């Protein structure tokens, strides 16, 4: 299943947030969306995932999702969005409970995703006992549990410290290499974008329009820290964005 965005535009009251977005999200690829803060990246992702209805344009699902997909469009949020009163296991079973799985199937799914994210030892832990990195791995495990056709990731690593982020980028690359998934990955971190994106969509500052789409051919597994080609891409992206970012940062927030 692919996704197609057709001339998406959205406003909150008088505030024009995104405008005229046309984008294809092909199967098995990671699309990164970067842009200055407040340019409507999160809004765009919510529109794609059906959490909000676009005022203009359409988000189309092309083809049908795989039959075994429980929740075709699945989010991974920046703030993890774990229920603090449920254990790691309980947080994963939460998203399976409404879909009529038997206890055994559920158990199998949980064990599988916990193993894939190296969390098997922390099954009974409460979120408050986990470090940020572990929490986000639980959120990723939960997303994997519903076998998504497309993962919608809203700055999944930006609440983490940079060392943990480094570790999780490796995890994501490993996951993708083992079994490629489709993802829309919103970030404001250009390093993350060049490490994870098959193509990188640069948005202008608000109202967000597509400034440029950069494709990177290098296989994900080869994109190591300090790779020169990636550095060049990152530098180029920064040049595109610098002014927009500066302007966005200097804006007064009115209530």
């Amino acid at each position, binding site marked *: 299943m*692919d*996704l*197609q965005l057709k001339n998406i535009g959205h406003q909150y009251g008088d505030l024009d947030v995104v405008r005229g977005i046309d984008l294809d999200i092909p199967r098995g690829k990671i699309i990164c969306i970067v842009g200055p803060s407040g340019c409507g990246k999160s809004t765009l992702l*919510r529109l*794609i*995932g*059906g*959490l*909000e*209805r676009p005022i203009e344009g*359409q*988000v*189309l*699902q*092309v*083809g*049908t999702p795989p039959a075994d997909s429980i929740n075709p*469009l699945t989010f991974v949020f920046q703030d993890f969005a774990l229920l603090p009163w449920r254990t790691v296991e309980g947080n994963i079973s939460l998203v399976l409970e409404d879909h009529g799985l038997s206890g055994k199937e559920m158990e199998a799914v949980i064990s599988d995703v916990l193993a894939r994210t190296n969390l098997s030892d922390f099954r009974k832990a409460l979120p408050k006992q986990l470090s940020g990195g572990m929490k986000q791995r639980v959120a990723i495990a939960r997303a994997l549990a519903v076998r998504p056709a497309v993962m919608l990731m809203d700055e999944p690593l930006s609440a983490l410290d940079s060392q943990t982020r480094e570790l999780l980028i490796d995890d994501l690359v490993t996951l993708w290499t083992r079994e490629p998934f489709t993802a829309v990955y919103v970030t404001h971190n250009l390093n993350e974008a060049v490490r994870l994106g098959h193509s990188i969509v640069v948005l202008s500052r608000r109202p967000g329009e597509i400034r440029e789409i950069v494709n990177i051919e290098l296989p994900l597994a080869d994109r190591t820290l300090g790779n020169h080609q990636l550095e060049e891409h990152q530098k180029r992206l920064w040049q595109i964005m610098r002014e927009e970012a500066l302007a966005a940062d200097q804006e007064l927030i009115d*209530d």
Partner: protein
Amino acid sequence: MTEPAERQKLVDFRGGGFVPRSNRWIGLLIFVAILIAVEIGTRTGFITSLTLPIPSDVFATFVELWRSGLLWKHLVPSITRLIVGALFGVSIGITVGILIGLFSIVRAGLAPVIAAIFPIPKIALLPLFVIWFGIDEGSKYALIAFGTFTPTVVATYGAVDNVDRSLIRMGQSFSLTWLSIVRKIVLPGAMPGILSGLRISLAIAIILLVAAEMLGAEYGIGAYILEAGSLYDLERLFVGVAILSILGVTVSAAINWVESRLLNWRV
């Protein structure tokens, strides 16, 4: 344009909801609807005159009270008692609350005492208030002050506890004096909590007006209600209750206004 082989559909919408907003007009409508229903019920005798008064009679009684000038005679002493009593209770309460919030010794000594006197019903102590504070205005002020004191203390020291410690560490790191930290960081930081505590204390103060005016009060909304109750005069009873209710709504609106002024820095 699109590949004919593949089925296309719009992505399902599944967000929205869970953001209830209040709407003044509907609220007013419901009030009016209830009043009309009671009016019809009492007039047709479906609701007996023992159970509820006829709303229009209540209104007429209110107009009469107002015309006769007695409304002010009752309202002025009550409001004076509210203001003086609450002023004492709230100011002492805030002071004690801040001391409890700042000093371990005070907290250890007073917090349990406060917790123990909170559930004591003030009306149970009425006979003692007579001895302690007399039957004139003193005991009325004292009762209201006592009733507002405990919730104010609890709210205040909770608010002080909730002041962001990192702001205090910041103050220390710039070598601000202890007094500066308390005045410029702790107090303004505790203000939102203190104000929302005030909402509760002042509601309690209004409730206690009736108890306070049990003691030798000739005029006052509480005395008016008590007399109406003892004469089983439902019209006047409901006029009194409605006045207290309006008083409560007014006080709450006043706090809203203060908050919007004083706390406009809140996100």
